[in-house]
């Protein structure tokens, strides 16, 4: 009996030690790579993103295909993490970055998420020379380059642009009720009253996750404050108890009076569905909702549904941009730069964006590859004043955003403007 036990114990030890040594065996090749970094077949280029949904995954794969055709000698690894609109991926990323095992390159929203996050943590390499080399300085709008820069240094390459200040509306519902497309807040509320009287939900909201409501609020802020003072909110130049912010909160409160009653049980797709079905007239959502209307609900652009900017943000563009940068401490920066070069090229952007349903970040992309919505938006993008979205982590650091989302969640129910302004002011001390 004793012998049996000792046998088992030895076996256990052997397995345990074996597991340890096989770990170190795995480590050795990567160690030797560092020594011979001249060889191209070093570590693969690991592309970290949360693009696993329909459309976006197709776009990413098209991009990888394009890259592999150009550089058959460089291995690519698609390390996408699904779920939670990027939350899960961000949690994995944070763990890896803090453990000093960064992916070769990763998806990050331009703006504060990049600059106040990874750049401030000193985890990113600058790309100024790379931009010069590629001749990109005049290929991206200056406002956009500013969004991926901190203290004059550029840190990432934008691949796509989504617009946050869009109202999608059901054209049939608008026509049946004789409602004009609203441009100002007054027109918006007049239209909403008319629709409400006709028994249609004026505005579809799905705030099971609070950012959808935050997105409405940020668009109201932009409409009331304009580009400079909206930006000033997050740099501390404009206080959150400014009269105009209070006015925006009042408008937000008024807007919430027109939403569907079951908003707390829906996500943005469920809300968009109400508009597609004609149960609700409008929804305020980033333009990824366009893909939902045309691909998932099979609706026709400008026939079944239309789009316009949120009240008083005509000529403004609330930017949500996905970018990829170069983390410090990776094994194969040259290979990764090759990937970034493809990502930032016209060809790369035109391979990715039509599938993802976004528009290219470059201003010289091939317009003919995009649908009508894309063409209109690309046109707007060139001329519009760009602002960074708060709800998507571009305007301010994630910590501030988390607190704003909490304040918004409480406000949607309590609708207490004083409390809301106080909560925003308290949160702003983190900025």
């Amino acid at each position, binding site marked *: 009996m*004793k012998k049996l*036990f*000792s046998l088992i*114990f030895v076996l*256990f*030890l052997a397995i*345990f030690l074996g597991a340890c040594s096989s770990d170190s065996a795995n480590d050795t090749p990567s160690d030797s790579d560092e020594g011979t970094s001249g060889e191209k077949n070093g570590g693969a280029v690991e592309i970290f993103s949360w693009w696993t949904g329909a459309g976006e995954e197709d776009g990413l794969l098209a991009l990888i295909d394009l890259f592999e055709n150009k550089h058959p000698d460089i291995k690519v690894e698609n390390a996408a993490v699904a779920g939670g609109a990027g*939350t899960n991926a*961000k*949690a994995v990323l*944070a763990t890896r*970055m*803090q453990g000093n095992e960064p992916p070769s390159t990763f998806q990050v929203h331009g703006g504060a998420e990049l600059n106040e*996050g*990874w750049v*401030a*943590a*000193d985890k990113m390499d600058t790309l100024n020379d790379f931009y010069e080399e590629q001749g990109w300085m005049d290929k991206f709008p200056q406002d956009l380059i500013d969004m991926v820069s901190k203290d004059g240094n550029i840190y990432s390459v934008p691949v796509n642009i989504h617009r946050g200040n869009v109202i999608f509306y059901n054209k049939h519902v608008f026509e049946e009720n004789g409602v004009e497309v609203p441009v100002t807040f007054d027109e918006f509320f007049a239209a909403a009253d008319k629709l409400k009287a006709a028994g249609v939900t004026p505005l579809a909201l799905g*705030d*099971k*996750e*609070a950012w959808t409501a935050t997105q409405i609020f940020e668009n109201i802020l932009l409409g009331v404050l304009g580009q400079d003072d909206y930006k000033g909110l997050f740099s501390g130049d404009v206080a959150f108890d400014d009269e105009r912010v209070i006015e925006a909160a009042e408008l937000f409160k008024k807007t919430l009076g027109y939403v569907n*009653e*079951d*908003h*707390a*049980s829906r996500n943005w797709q469920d809300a968009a569905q109400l508009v597609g079905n004609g149960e609700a007239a409008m929804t305020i959502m980033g333009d990824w909702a366009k893909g939902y209307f045309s691909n998932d609900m099979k609706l026709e652009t400008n026939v079944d549904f239309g789009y316009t900017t949120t009240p008083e943000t005509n000529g403004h563009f609330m930017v949500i941009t996905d970018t990829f940068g170069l983390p410090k401490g990776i094994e194969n920066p040259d290979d990764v730069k090759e990937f970034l070069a493809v990502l930032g090229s016209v060809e790369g952007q035109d391979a990715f964006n039509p599938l993802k349903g976004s528009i290219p970040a470059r201003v010289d992309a091939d317009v003919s590859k995009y649908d009508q919505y894309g063409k209109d938006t690309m046109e707007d993008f060139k001329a519009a004043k760009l602002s960074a979205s708060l709800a998507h982590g571009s305007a301010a*650091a*994630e*910590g501030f*955003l*988390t*607190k704003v989302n*909490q304040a918004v*969640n*409480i406000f*949607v*129910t*309590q609708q207490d403007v004083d409390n809301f302004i106080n*909560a925003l002011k308290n949160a702003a001390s983190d900025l």
Partner: protein
Amino acid sequence: MEPQLEVKQQTELKRKTRLSKDRAMAVAFLAPSFILILIFIYGFIGWTGWVSVSNWNTLVPDFSFAGLKNYIYLFGDYRFQADLRNTVFFTILFIGLVIILGLGLSILIDQKLKGESIFRNIFLFPMALSFVVTGVVWQWLLNPSTGYNKFLQVFNIQPKWYTDTKILAGFEWGQIEFGLPVAIFAVVIAAVWQMTGFSLAMYLAGLRGIPEELREAARIDGASEFQIYRKVILPILMPITVSVVIIMAHISLKIFDLIYAMTGSGANFVTDVPGVYMFETTFRGNYYANGAAIAIIMLLLVAVFIVPYLISSRRGDQ
């Protein structure tokens, strides 16, 4: 004293040599798991405790000592106060219903009825699912615009389920309105649906272990069927009740997946719990120290239940 001590030492030594082989084996067997548990459980609990009193509230680790700052912040925070309120009511309702339903069903099944195993399996089956699956299913069943409400239209009742923001019997307490959040019922229904099978199985095993003689004796003494259950069966089942309470308490105090999948934080945080807050504040907001503080508070909450149980069961062993 001296010689006595020497004798004692000698006998000790003898025993030691006799035992040393066994002991070495035992130590060798236990050491790996002991070391792993020491590092990966207690080590990390200690680490979390340390982070919770640090200033690490950005992406960049900052281990400078912050005192109880994070705890003070949390207890003054609207969301965390709401979380504690929800946890209290969720735990009470969840444990209460699981015990009452589990006991009731097990007594019914114990009546030697036909097709007993079919019923047992039906009630046990939900336990085979993960909380995430349960959450997604009940999210639709209790969605105010789909699910049960379609059926309830016939009776003209339209509960708002987990989107209801009403607080029953509420009064101002700290920053929040303290009272029973109506929305928590929806989550309790889903959790009870899943876990009742567990307490049913426990109670059924207990009931089967009670010898028929005891009931006979009680009957001869003239006890009614109800009295038999109240005075004989239930006291015998007491240890099972304690186990069920302990196991359910640690599930309900740490609940995350069910709520994350089913309702999220809910409007005005009516269905939020510390687990969800911890996840969001740590991994969305990068407030690592705050998240660690929430984790420690959750650990202490569970300890309130577990530690007395461990102490009493240790006493029982001796």
